[in-house]
Protein backbone atom coordinates (compact mmCIF):
# COMPACT_ATOMS: atom_id res chain seq x y z
CA UNK A 1 0.00 0.00 0.00
CA UNK A 2 1.50 3.36 -0.94
CA UNK A 3 1.26 6.50 1.11
CA UNK A 4 -1.10 8.13 -1.38
CA UNK A 5 -3.66 5.37 -1.18
CA UNK A 6 -4.06 5.41 2.56
CA UNK A 7 -5.95 8.65 3.18
CA UNK A 8 -8.46 7.83 0.45
CA UNK A 9 -9.21 4.39 1.89
CA UNK A 10 -9.46 5.80 5.35
CA UNK A 11 -11.89 8.49 4.33
CA UNK A 12 -14.20 6.03 2.54
CA UNK A 13 -14.18 3.94 5.72
CA UNK A 14 -14.99 7.04 7.77
CA UNK A 15 -17.73 8.06 5.37
CA UNK A 16 -19.43 4.70 5.64
CA UNK A 17 -19.11 4.81 9.45
CA UNK A 18 -20.80 8.22 9.47
CA UNK A 19 -23.54 7.02 7.12
CA UNK A 20 -24.23 3.99 9.31
CA UNK A 21 -24.30 6.23 12.41
CA UNK A 22 -26.76 8.66 10.88
CA UNK A 23 -28.79 5.73 9.62
CA UNK A 24 -29.02 4.25 13.11
CA UNK A 25 -29.98 7.60 14.65
CA UNK A 26 -32.68 7.97 12.02
CA UNK A 27 -33.91 4.45 12.70
CA UNK A 28 -34.14 5.07 16.45
CA UNK A 29 -36.06 8.31 15.98
CA UNK A 30 -38.34 6.68 13.43
CA UNK A 31 -38.93 3.67 15.70
CA UNK A 32 -39.88 5.98 18.57
CA UNK A 33 -42.13 8.05 16.30
CA UNK A 34 -44.10 5.09 14.90
CA UNK A 35 -44.08 3.08 18.15
CA UNK A 36 -47.93 2.90 18.16
CA UNK A 37 -47.78 1.23 14.72
CA UNK A 38 -44.95 -1.17 15.59
CA UNK A 39 -46.41 -2.21 18.94
CA UNK A 40 -50.07 -1.27 18.90
CA UNK A 41 -50.87 -2.87 22.25
CA UNK A 42 -48.43 -0.54 24.01
CA UNK A 43 -45.51 -1.20 26.34
CA UNK A 44 -47.44 -1.92 29.52
CA UNK A 45 -49.42 -5.12 28.75
CA UNK A 46 -48.30 -7.81 31.21
CA UNK A 47 -48.76 -11.52 30.47
CA UNK A 48 -47.31 -13.55 33.38
CA UNK A 49 -47.69 -16.98 31.71
CA UNK A 50 -45.47 -15.71 28.91
CA UNK A 51 -42.81 -14.27 31.25
CA UNK A 52 -39.07 -14.60 30.54
CA UNK A 53 -39.57 -16.04 27.02
CA UNK A 54 -36.38 -15.94 24.93
CA UNK A 55 -36.25 -13.99 21.66
CA UNK A 56 -37.99 -15.96 18.93
CA UNK A 57 -41.02 -16.06 16.71
CA UNK A 58 -43.41 -15.29 19.62
CA UNK A 59 -41.87 -12.00 20.68
CA UNK A 60 -39.07 -10.74 18.49
CA UNK A 61 -36.83 -9.67 21.38
CA UNK A 62 -38.31 -11.91 24.08
CA UNK A 63 -40.32 -10.97 27.15
CA UNK A 64 -39.35 -9.65 30.58
CA UNK A 65 -40.22 -10.94 34.06
CA UNK A 66 -43.83 -9.74 33.78
CA UNK A 67 -44.30 -11.13 30.29
CA UNK A 68 -44.08 -7.68 28.71
CA UNK A 69 -42.62 -7.60 25.21
CA UNK A 70 -39.04 -6.31 25.30
CA UNK A 71 -39.31 -5.14 21.68
CA UNK A 72 -42.46 -3.11 22.35
CA UNK A 73 -40.90 -1.57 25.47
CA UNK A 74 -37.77 -0.75 23.47
CA UNK A 75 -39.54 1.32 20.82
CA UNK A 76 -41.91 2.98 23.33
CA UNK A 77 -38.97 3.49 25.69
CA UNK A 78 -37.10 5.23 22.90
CA UNK A 79 -39.76 7.95 23.10
CA UNK A 80 -39.12 8.57 26.80
CA UNK A 81 -35.32 8.31 26.57
CA UNK A 82 -35.00 10.48 23.47
CA UNK A 83 -37.43 13.08 24.79
CA UNK A 84 -35.49 13.30 28.05
CA UNK A 85 -32.21 13.62 26.14
CA UNK A 86 -33.55 16.30 23.81
CA UNK A 87 -35.06 18.32 26.68
CA UNK A 88 -31.86 18.08 28.71
CA UNK A 89 -29.70 19.07 25.75
CA UNK A 90 -31.95 22.05 24.92
CA UNK A 91 -31.69 23.21 28.52
CA UNK A 92 -27.89 22.79 28.54
CA UNK A 93 -27.55 24.77 25.30
CA UNK A 94 -30.15 27.35 26.36
CA UNK A 95 -28.24 28.10 29.56
CA UNK A 96 -24.67 27.42 28.47
CA UNK A 97 -24.76 29.29 25.16
CA UNK A 98 -25.69 32.78 26.45
CA UNK A 99 -23.33 32.49 29.44
CA UNK A 100 -20.40 31.23 27.38
CA UNK A 101 -21.06 33.72 24.58
CA UNK A 102 -21.25 36.63 27.02
CA UNK A 103 -18.02 35.55 28.73
CA UNK A 104 -16.21 34.93 25.46
CA UNK A 105 -17.28 38.03 23.61
CA UNK A 106 -17.08 40.52 26.49
CA UNK A 107 -13.84 39.01 27.89
CA UNK A 108 -12.20 40.97 30.72
CA UNK A 109 -13.83 41.03 34.15
CA UNK A 110 -17.25 39.78 32.98
CA UNK A 111 -15.46 36.70 31.65
CA UNK A 112 -13.63 36.28 34.96
CA UNK A 113 -16.79 36.46 37.07
CA UNK A 114 -18.90 34.19 34.86
CA UNK A 115 -16.19 31.59 34.49
CA UNK A 116 -15.53 31.44 38.22
CA UNK A 117 -19.14 30.38 38.68
CA UNK A 118 -18.88 27.88 35.86
CA UNK A 119 -15.65 26.48 37.35
CA UNK A 120 -17.30 26.14 40.74
CA UNK A 121 -20.13 24.11 39.17
CA UNK A 122 -17.60 22.03 37.25
CA UNK A 123 -15.93 21.16 40.56
CA UNK A 124 -18.89 18.88 41.29
CA UNK A 125 -18.87 15.54 39.49
CA UNK A 126 -21.58 15.92 36.86
CA UNK A 127 -23.67 12.95 37.95
CA UNK A 128 -23.54 14.13 41.58
CA UNK A 129 -24.57 17.61 40.44
CA UNK A 130 -27.57 16.13 38.62
CA UNK A 131 -28.37 14.01 41.69
CA UNK A 132 -28.23 17.09 43.93
CA UNK A 133 -30.69 18.86 41.62
CA UNK A 134 -32.97 15.83 41.95
CA UNK A 135 -32.65 16.08 45.74
CA UNK A 136 -34.03 19.61 45.48
CA UNK A 137 -36.64 19.00 42.74
CA UNK A 138 -37.79 15.52 43.71
CA UNK A 139 -37.76 12.55 41.35
CA UNK A 140 -39.55 12.00 38.01
CA UNK A 141 -38.91 12.00 34.27
CA UNK A 142 -39.15 15.79 33.89
CA UNK A 143 -36.93 16.30 36.95
CA UNK A 144 -34.29 14.04 35.40
CA UNK A 145 -34.35 16.04 32.15
CA UNK A 146 -33.94 19.31 34.09
CA UNK A 147 -31.23 17.88 36.36
CA UNK A 148 -29.17 16.52 33.48
CA UNK A 149 -29.60 19.74 31.50
CA UNK A 150 -28.41 21.84 34.45
CA UNK A 151 -25.49 19.47 35.03
CA UNK A 152 -24.46 19.66 31.35
CA UNK A 153 -24.75 23.45 31.05
CA UNK A 154 -21.42 24.44 32.72
CA UNK A 155 -19.35 22.28 30.36
CA UNK A 156 -21.21 23.72 27.37
CA UNK A 157 -20.66 27.28 28.64
CA UNK A 158 -16.92 26.57 28.91
CA UNK A 159 -16.69 25.30 25.35
CA UNK A 160 -18.77 28.19 23.96
CA UNK A 161 -16.50 30.61 25.79
CA UNK A 162 -13.26 29.14 24.50
CA UNK A 163 -14.52 28.97 20.90
CA UNK A 164 -15.85 32.54 21.20
CA UNK A 165 -12.51 33.76 22.51
CA UNK A 166 -10.78 32.21 19.50
CA UNK A 167 -13.16 33.88 17.06
CA UNK A 168 -12.89 37.16 18.95
CA UNK A 169 -9.16 37.30 18.25
CA UNK A 170 -9.79 37.35 14.47
CA UNK A 171 -9.12 40.60 12.58
CA UNK A 172 -12.70 40.81 11.24
CA UNK A 173 -14.01 41.22 14.79
CA UNK A 174 -11.70 44.18 15.25
CA UNK A 175 -12.99 45.53 11.95
CA UNK A 176 -16.60 45.11 13.11
CA UNK A 177 -15.76 46.98 16.29
CA UNK A 178 -14.02 49.70 14.29
CA UNK A 179 -17.11 50.36 12.18
CA UNK A 180 -19.10 50.78 15.40
CA UNK A 181 -21.03 47.51 15.82
CA UNK A 182 -22.57 47.08 19.27
CA UNK A 183 -21.41 44.37 21.68
CA UNK A 184 -24.62 42.42 21.12
CA UNK A 185 -24.36 42.63 17.34
CA UNK A 186 -20.73 41.49 17.38
CA UNK A 187 -21.55 38.65 19.77
CA UNK A 188 -24.51 37.31 17.78
CA UNK A 189 -23.88 38.27 14.14
CA UNK A 190 -20.11 37.79 14.10
CA UNK A 191 -18.83 35.61 16.94
CA UNK A 192 -21.80 33.24 17.26
CA UNK A 193 -22.25 32.90 13.50
CA UNK A 194 -18.60 31.91 13.06
CA UNK A 195 -18.46 29.69 16.13
CA UNK A 196 -21.71 27.87 15.28
CA UNK A 197 -20.23 24.87 13.41
CA UNK A 198 -17.95 23.93 16.34
CA UNK A 199 -20.75 24.53 18.82
CA UNK A 200 -23.12 22.25 16.92
CA UNK A 201 -20.45 19.54 16.92
CA UNK A 202 -20.03 19.81 20.67
CA UNK A 203 -23.78 19.81 21.29
CA UNK A 204 -24.02 16.63 19.20
CA UNK A 205 -21.23 15.05 21.25
CA UNK A 206 -23.04 16.11 24.41
CA UNK A 207 -26.22 14.39 23.24
CA UNK A 208 -24.56 11.01 23.81
CA UNK A 209 -23.35 12.04 27.23
CA UNK A 210 -26.76 13.45 28.20
CA UNK A 211 -28.48 10.20 27.16
CA UNK A 212 -26.07 8.15 29.31
CA UNK A 213 -26.63 10.42 32.32
CA UNK A 214 -30.42 10.47 32.04
CA UNK A 215 -30.62 6.70 31.70
CA UNK A 216 -28.15 6.35 34.61
CA UNK A 217 -30.41 8.37 36.91
CA UNK A 218 -33.36 6.19 35.89
CA UNK A 219 -31.21 3.08 36.40
CA UNK A 220 -30.41 4.28 39.94
CA UNK A 221 -34.14 4.63 40.64
CA UNK A 222 -34.04 8.43 40.95
CA UNK A 223 -36.09 9.21 37.86
CA UNK A 224 -38.99 7.48 36.20
CA UNK A 225 -41.32 5.48 38.46
CA UNK A 226 -40.89 1.68 38.29
CA UNK A 227 -42.53 0.12 35.25
CA UNK A 228 -41.94 3.12 32.99
CA UNK A 229 -40.77 1.96 29.58
CA UNK A 230 -37.41 3.74 29.50
CA UNK A 231 -34.06 2.21 28.55
CA UNK A 232 -32.29 2.88 31.87
CA UNK A 233 -35.28 1.64 33.85
CA UNK A 234 -35.52 -1.47 31.64
CA UNK A 235 -31.87 -2.22 32.45
CA UNK A 236 -32.53 -1.80 36.17
CA UNK A 237 -35.60 -4.05 36.07
CA UNK A 238 -33.89 -6.66 33.90
CA UNK A 239 -30.87 -6.83 36.20
CA UNK A 240 -32.67 -9.00 38.75
CA UNK A 241 -33.43 -11.59 36.05
CA UNK A 242 -30.03 -11.49 34.37
CA UNK A 243 -29.56 -15.23 34.87
CA UNK A 244 -32.94 -16.22 33.40
CA UNK A 245 -33.65 -13.51 30.83
CA UNK A 246 -30.46 -11.67 29.83
CA UNK A 247 -32.24 -10.30 26.73
CA UNK A 248 -34.39 -8.06 28.94
CA UNK A 249 -31.31 -6.01 29.88
CA UNK A 250 -28.98 -6.70 26.94
CA UNK A 251 -31.25 -5.14 24.28
CA UNK A 252 -32.05 -1.83 25.99
CA UNK A 253 -28.34 -1.42 26.84
CA UNK A 254 -27.38 -2.21 23.25
CA UNK A 255 -29.89 0.32 21.92
CA UNK A 256 -28.56 3.00 24.27
CA UNK A 257 -24.88 2.26 23.55
CA UNK A 258 -25.38 2.23 19.77
CA UNK A 259 -27.30 5.51 19.94
CA UNK A 260 -24.58 7.17 22.04
CA UNK A 261 -21.90 5.74 19.74
CA UNK A 262 -23.71 7.01 16.65
CA UNK A 263 -24.12 10.49 18.15
CA UNK A 264 -20.42 10.60 19.12
CA UNK A 265 -19.23 9.40 15.70
CA UNK A 266 -21.47 11.89 13.90
CA UNK A 267 -20.14 14.64 16.17
CA UNK A 268 -16.52 13.63 15.48
CA UNK A 269 -17.09 13.60 11.72
CA UNK A 270 -18.78 16.99 11.88
CA UNK A 271 -15.92 18.38 13.98
CA UNK A 272 -13.33 17.02 11.51
CA UNK A 273 -15.23 18.58 8.63
CA UNK A 274 -15.32 21.93 10.46
CA UNK A 275 -11.59 21.83 11.09
CA UNK A 276 -10.98 20.77 7.49
CA UNK A 277 -9.00 17.67 8.48
Amino acid at each position, binding site marked *: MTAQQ*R*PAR*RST*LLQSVVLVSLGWLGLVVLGAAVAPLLAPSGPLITDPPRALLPPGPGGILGTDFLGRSVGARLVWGGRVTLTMGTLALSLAVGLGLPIGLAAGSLAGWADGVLM*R*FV*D*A*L*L*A*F*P*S*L*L*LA*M*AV*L*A*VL*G*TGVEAVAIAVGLAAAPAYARVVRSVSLEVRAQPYIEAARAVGCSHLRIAVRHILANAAPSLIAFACAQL*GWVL*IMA*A*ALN*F*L*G*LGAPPGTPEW*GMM*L*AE*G*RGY*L*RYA*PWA*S*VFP*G*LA*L*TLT*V*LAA*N*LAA*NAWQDAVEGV
Partner: protein
Amino acid sequence: MLARYFVRRLLAAVSVLWLAVTLAFVALQLTPGDPAQALLAASGATPEEIAQRRAHLGLDDPALIQYLRYVLDLARGDLGQSWLQGRPVGQMIREQLPPTLALAIAAAGVGATLGLILGVVAAVHRSTWIDTMATTVAVVGLATPTYWSGLLAILLFSLALHWLPSAGEGDLRHLILPASVLGFALSGSVARVVRARVAQVLRAPFILVAEAKGLPPRHVLMSHVLRASLGPALAVLALQFGFLLSGAVVTESVFARRGLGTLTVQAILWRDLPVVRGIMVVAALAFVLTSLAADLARGWLDPRLREGPA
Protein backbone atom coordinates in the same frame (compact mmCIF):
# COMPACT_ATOMS: atom_id res chain seq x y z
CA MET B 1 9.03 31.15 38.82
CA LEU B 2 7.86 27.80 40.12
CA ALA B 3 6.73 29.35 43.42
CA ARG B 4 4.67 32.02 41.64
CA TYR B 5 3.01 29.38 39.48
CA PHE B 6 2.12 27.37 42.58
CA VAL B 7 0.71 30.38 44.45
CA ARG B 8 -1.42 31.43 41.47
CA ARG B 9 -2.81 27.90 41.14
CA LEU B 10 -3.50 27.71 44.87
CA LEU B 11 -5.45 30.99 44.91
CA ALA B 12 -7.59 29.89 41.95
CA ALA B 13 -8.29 26.57 43.69
CA VAL B 14 -9.34 28.25 46.94
CA SER B 15 -11.73 30.64 45.18
CA VAL B 16 -13.35 27.84 43.18
CA LEU B 17 -13.76 25.76 46.32
CA TRP B 18 -15.33 28.62 48.27
CA LEU B 19 -17.81 29.30 45.47
CA ALA B 20 -18.71 25.60 45.21
CA VAL B 21 -19.30 25.40 48.96
CA THR B 22 -21.47 28.53 48.80
CA LEU B 23 -23.50 27.16 45.86
CA ALA B 24 -24.13 23.97 47.82
CA PHE B 25 -25.43 26.09 50.73
CA VAL B 26 -27.70 28.19 48.50
CA ALA B 27 -29.16 25.06 46.87
CA LEU B 28 -30.14 23.69 50.26
CA GLN B 29 -31.70 27.03 51.28
CA LEU B 30 -33.79 27.08 48.11
CA THR B 31 -35.22 23.66 48.77
CA PRO B 32 -38.87 23.83 49.77
CA GLY B 33 -40.08 22.03 52.87
CA ASP B 34 -39.30 22.24 56.56
CA PRO B 35 -36.74 19.64 57.66
CA ALA B 36 -37.77 19.75 61.32
CA GLN B 37 -41.38 19.16 60.38
CA ALA B 38 -40.49 16.41 57.93
CA LEU B 39 -38.41 14.69 60.61
CA LEU B 40 -40.88 14.87 63.46
CA ALA B 41 -44.31 14.97 61.84
CA ALA B 42 -44.24 11.24 61.19
CA SER B 43 -43.60 10.49 64.85
CA GLY B 44 -46.62 12.59 65.91
CA ALA B 45 -44.68 15.43 67.50
CA THR B 46 -46.50 18.54 68.82
CA PRO B 47 -45.93 21.95 67.21
CA GLU B 48 -43.90 22.94 70.32
CA GLU B 49 -41.52 20.05 69.83
CA ILE B 50 -41.13 20.96 66.18
CA ALA B 51 -40.39 24.56 67.11
CA GLN B 52 -37.86 23.36 69.67
CA ARG B 53 -36.19 21.18 67.04
CA ARG B 54 -36.05 24.11 64.61
CA ALA B 55 -34.28 26.20 67.21
CA HIS B 56 -31.93 23.33 67.97
CA LEU B 57 -31.01 22.86 64.28
CA GLY B 58 -30.49 26.65 64.04
CA LEU B 59 -33.14 26.96 61.32
CA ASP B 60 -34.70 30.10 62.88
CA ASP B 61 -31.54 32.16 62.50
CA PRO B 62 -31.15 34.57 59.57
CA ALA B 63 -29.68 32.96 56.43
CA LEU B 64 -26.45 34.93 56.76
CA ILE B 65 -25.84 33.62 60.31
CA GLN B 66 -26.59 30.08 59.12
CA TYR B 67 -24.16 30.57 56.24
CA LEU B 68 -21.36 31.84 58.49
CA ARG B 69 -21.91 28.96 60.91
CA TYR B 70 -21.84 26.51 57.98
CA VAL B 71 -18.58 27.90 56.59
CA LEU B 72 -16.90 28.02 60.02
CA ASP B 73 -18.04 24.45 60.74
CA LEU B 74 -16.69 23.34 57.37
CA ALA B 75 -13.36 25.01 58.11
CA ARG B 76 -13.20 22.87 61.27
CA GLY B 77 -14.07 19.79 59.21
CA ASP B 78 -17.67 19.57 60.48
CA LEU B 79 -20.11 18.74 57.67
CA GLY B 80 -23.26 19.03 59.79
CA GLN B 81 -25.80 16.47 60.90
CA SER B 82 -28.02 14.09 58.99
CA TRP B 83 -31.68 15.10 59.27
CA LEU B 84 -32.70 11.49 59.16
CA GLN B 85 -30.21 9.74 61.41
CA GLY B 86 -29.04 12.65 63.56
CA ARG B 87 -25.46 11.46 63.06
CA PRO B 88 -22.55 13.62 61.88
CA VAL B 89 -22.42 13.63 58.05
CA GLY B 90 -18.62 13.47 58.15
CA GLN B 91 -18.74 10.20 60.04
CA MET B 92 -21.30 8.72 57.61
CA ILE B 93 -19.10 9.65 54.64
CA ARG B 94 -15.94 8.31 56.30
CA GLU B 95 -17.65 4.96 56.83
CA GLN B 96 -18.64 4.64 53.16
CA LEU B 97 -15.47 6.13 51.66
CA PRO B 98 -13.01 3.16 51.69
CA PRO B 99 -14.87 0.86 49.23
CA THR B 100 -15.57 3.76 46.85
CA LEU B 101 -11.98 4.96 47.06
CA ALA B 102 -10.65 1.44 46.42
CA LEU B 103 -12.90 1.15 43.34
CA ALA B 104 -11.96 4.61 42.03
CA ILE B 105 -8.21 4.08 42.47
CA ALA B 106 -8.25 0.61 40.91
CA ALA B 107 -10.37 1.90 38.00
CA ALA B 108 -8.03 4.88 37.50
CA GLY B 109 -5.11 2.45 37.34
CA VAL B 110 -6.86 0.26 34.77
CA GLY B 111 -8.06 3.26 32.75
CA ALA B 112 -4.68 5.01 32.71
CA THR B 113 -2.77 1.87 31.73
CA LEU B 114 -5.24 0.80 29.05
CA GLY B 115 -5.61 4.37 27.74
CA LEU B 116 -1.85 4.89 27.58
CA ILE B 117 -1.30 1.63 25.71
CA LEU B 118 -4.16 2.25 23.26
CA GLY B 119 -3.09 5.86 22.66
CA VAL B 120 0.60 5.11 22.13
CA VAL B 121 -0.06 2.10 19.89
CA ALA B 122 -2.55 4.09 17.80
CA ALA B 123 -0.18 7.04 17.41
CA VAL B 124 2.90 4.95 16.57
CA HIS B 125 0.99 2.97 13.93
CA ARG B 126 -0.89 6.02 12.72
CA SER B 127 -3.32 5.55 9.79
CA THR B 128 -2.94 1.77 9.71
CA TRP B 129 -5.42 -0.91 10.67
CA ILE B 130 -3.78 -1.06 14.15
CA ASP B 131 -4.67 2.60 14.67
CA THR B 132 -8.22 1.93 13.48
CA MET B 133 -8.58 -0.99 15.90
CA ALA B 134 -7.14 0.87 18.91
CA THR B 135 -9.23 3.96 18.17
CA THR B 136 -12.36 1.83 17.78
CA VAL B 137 -11.81 0.26 21.20
CA ALA B 138 -11.40 3.75 22.71
CA VAL B 139 -14.51 5.12 20.97
CA VAL B 140 -16.61 2.16 22.08
CA GLY B 141 -15.29 2.56 25.63
CA LEU B 142 -16.41 6.20 25.62
CA ALA B 143 -19.92 5.35 24.44
CA THR B 144 -20.67 2.32 26.62
CA PRO B 145 -22.48 3.13 29.87
CA THR B 146 -20.97 1.25 32.82
CA TYR B 147 -24.42 0.04 33.88
CA TRP B 148 -24.57 -1.93 30.63
CA SER B 149 -20.96 -3.09 30.30
CA GLY B 150 -21.16 -4.07 33.98
CA LEU B 151 -24.19 -6.30 33.34
CA LEU B 152 -22.47 -7.84 30.29
CA ALA B 153 -19.36 -8.52 32.40
CA ILE B 154 -21.48 -10.21 35.07
CA LEU B 155 -23.22 -12.28 32.39
CA LEU B 156 -19.93 -13.46 30.93
CA PHE B 157 -17.51 -13.76 33.85
CA SER B 158 -19.88 -14.59 36.71
CA LEU B 159 -22.91 -16.37 35.28
CA ALA B 160 -21.39 -18.14 32.26
CA LEU B 161 -17.77 -18.75 33.23
CA HIS B 162 -18.07 -18.62 37.07
CA TRP B 163 -14.67 -16.93 37.29
CA LEU B 164 -15.51 -13.93 39.43
CA PRO B 165 -18.20 -12.97 41.96
CA SER B 166 -20.99 -10.79 40.55
CA ALA B 167 -21.83 -8.71 43.59
CA GLY B 168 -20.76 -7.46 46.98
CA GLU B 169 -17.33 -6.52 48.26
CA GLY B 170 -14.65 -8.27 50.21
CA ASP B 171 -11.39 -9.54 48.78
CA LEU B 172 -9.63 -8.37 45.62
CA ARG B 173 -11.63 -10.74 43.42
CA HIS B 174 -14.73 -8.63 44.08
CA LEU B 175 -12.87 -5.57 42.83
CA ILE B 176 -11.69 -6.95 39.47
CA LEU B 177 -14.96 -6.73 37.50
CA PRO B 178 -16.14 -3.31 38.72
CA ALA B 179 -12.67 -1.76 38.37
CA SER B 180 -12.24 -3.18 34.85
CA VAL B 181 -15.68 -1.98 33.75
CA LEU B 182 -15.12 1.54 35.08
CA GLY B 183 -11.49 1.59 33.88
CA PHE B 184 -12.57 0.60 30.36
CA ALA B 185 -15.02 3.52 30.28
CA LEU B 186 -12.23 5.84 31.44
CA SER B 187 -9.60 4.56 28.99
CA GLY B 188 -11.39 6.08 25.98
CA SER B 189 -10.78 9.69 26.94
CA VAL B 190 -7.20 8.97 28.08
CA ALA B 191 -6.42 7.17 24.81
CA ARG B 192 -7.80 10.03 22.73
CA VAL B 193 -5.58 12.63 24.42
CA VAL B 194 -2.50 10.39 24.50
CA ARG B 195 -2.87 9.52 20.79
CA ALA B 196 -3.08 13.18 19.75
CA ARG B 197 -0.19 14.12 22.01
CA VAL B 198 2.13 11.27 21.00
CA ALA B 199 1.43 11.91 17.31
CA GLN B 200 2.40 15.54 17.88
CA VAL B 201 5.54 14.70 19.88
CA LEU B 202 6.68 12.18 17.25
CA ARG B 203 6.95 15.05 14.77
CA ALA B 204 8.86 17.30 17.21
CA PRO B 205 12.46 18.26 16.36
CA PHE B 206 13.88 16.76 19.56
CA ILE B 207 12.65 13.33 18.53
CA LEU B 208 14.42 13.74 15.17
CA VAL B 209 17.57 14.66 17.12
CA ALA B 210 17.20 11.64 19.40
CA GLU B 211 16.81 9.38 16.36
CA ALA B 212 19.69 11.08 14.54
CA LYS B 213 21.91 10.44 17.57
CA GLY B 214 21.31 6.78 16.84
CA LEU B 215 19.19 5.96 19.89
CA PRO B 216 17.28 2.71 19.39
CA PRO B 217 13.57 3.36 18.56
CA ARG B 218 12.42 1.63 21.73
CA HIS B 219 14.56 3.96 23.83
CA VAL B 220 13.29 7.05 21.98
CA LEU B 221 9.71 5.94 22.57
CA MET B 222 10.09 5.05 26.22
CA SER B 223 12.17 7.91 27.54
CA HIS B 224 11.49 10.79 25.15
CA VAL B 225 8.05 10.38 23.66
CA LEU B 226 6.41 8.91 26.76
CA ARG B 227 7.82 11.52 29.12
CA ALA B 228 6.59 14.36 26.93
CA SER B 229 3.15 12.73 26.71
CA LEU B 230 2.68 12.00 30.40
CA GLY B 231 1.72 15.59 31.28
CA PRO B 232 -1.45 15.70 29.15
CA ALA B 233 -2.32 12.18 30.26
CA LEU B 234 -2.10 13.32 33.88
CA ALA B 235 -4.20 16.38 33.14
CA VAL B 236 -6.94 14.36 31.48
CA LEU B 237 -6.94 11.88 34.35
CA ALA B 238 -7.40 14.73 36.82
CA LEU B 239 -10.18 16.21 34.68
CA GLN B 240 -11.82 12.79 34.61
CA PHE B 241 -11.90 12.69 38.41
CA GLY B 242 -15.53 13.74 38.40
CA PHE B 243 -16.30 11.11 35.75
CA LEU B 244 -14.55 8.54 37.91
CA LEU B 245 -16.59 9.44 40.98
CA SER B 246 -19.85 9.58 38.98
CA GLY B 247 -18.97 6.27 37.39
CA ALA B 248 -18.17 4.75 40.78
CA VAL B 249 -21.66 5.68 42.01
CA VAL B 250 -23.28 3.81 39.11
CA THR B 251 -20.81 0.91 39.14
CA GLU B 252 -21.46 0.37 42.85
CA SER B 253 -25.13 0.08 42.11
CA VAL B 254 -24.52 -2.45 39.31
CA PHE B 255 -22.32 -4.68 41.46
CA ALA B 256 -24.33 -4.16 44.67
CA ARG B 257 -21.32 -2.71 46.46
CA ARG B 258 -21.43 -0.62 49.60
CA GLY B 259 -20.06 2.90 49.28
CA LEU B 260 -20.69 6.59 48.65
CA GLY B 261 -23.01 5.78 45.74
CA THR B 262 -25.46 3.89 47.88
CA LEU B 263 -25.26 6.60 50.55
CA THR B 264 -26.01 9.32 47.97
CA VAL B 265 -28.93 7.47 46.38
CA GLN B 266 -30.47 6.78 49.79
CA ALA B 267 -29.96 10.40 50.90
CA ILE B 268 -31.72 11.67 47.78
CA LEU B 269 -34.64 9.25 48.05
CA TRP B 270 -35.12 10.29 51.69
CA ARG B 271 -34.32 13.95 50.91
CA ASP B 272 -31.67 13.96 53.62
CA LEU B 273 -30.20 17.18 52.26
CA PRO B 274 -27.29 17.76 54.70
CA VAL B 275 -25.92 14.36 53.65
CA VAL B 276 -26.29 15.27 49.95
CA ARG B 277 -24.61 18.61 50.62
CA GLY B 278 -21.80 16.97 52.60
CA ILE B 279 -21.07 14.55 49.77
CA MET B 280 -21.07 17.43 47.24
CA VAL B 281 -18.65 19.44 49.37
CA VAL B 282 -16.31 16.48 49.83
CA ALA B 283 -16.46 15.71 46.09
CA ALA B 284 -15.69 19.32 45.18
CA LEU B 285 -12.81 19.41 47.66
CA ALA B 286 -11.40 16.19 46.24
CA PHE B 287 -11.75 17.50 42.68
CA VAL B 288 -10.03 20.79 43.49
CA LEU B 289 -7.18 19.00 45.29
CA THR B 290 -6.75 16.50 42.42
CA SER B 291 -6.60 19.14 39.72
CA LEU B 292 -4.29 21.25 41.87
CA ALA B 293 -1.96 18.28 42.34
CA ALA B 294 -2.09 17.54 38.60
CA ASP B 295 -1.32 21.18 37.76
CA LEU B 296 1.63 21.19 40.12
CA ALA B 297 2.90 17.89 38.76
CA ARG B 298 2.62 19.22 35.22
CA GLY B 299 4.42 22.42 36.17
CA TRP B 300 7.19 20.27 37.54
CA LEU B 301 7.25 17.94 34.50
CA ASP B 302 7.00 20.67 31.87
CA PRO B 303 8.89 23.90 32.67
CA ARG B 304 7.17 25.77 29.80
CA LEU B 305 3.86 25.80 31.69
CA ARG B 306 5.17 27.77 34.65
CA GLU B 307 5.39 30.97 32.64
CA GLY B 308 2.11 31.03 30.72
CA PRO B 309 -0.95 33.01 31.83
CA ALA B 310 -3.09 31.48 34.55
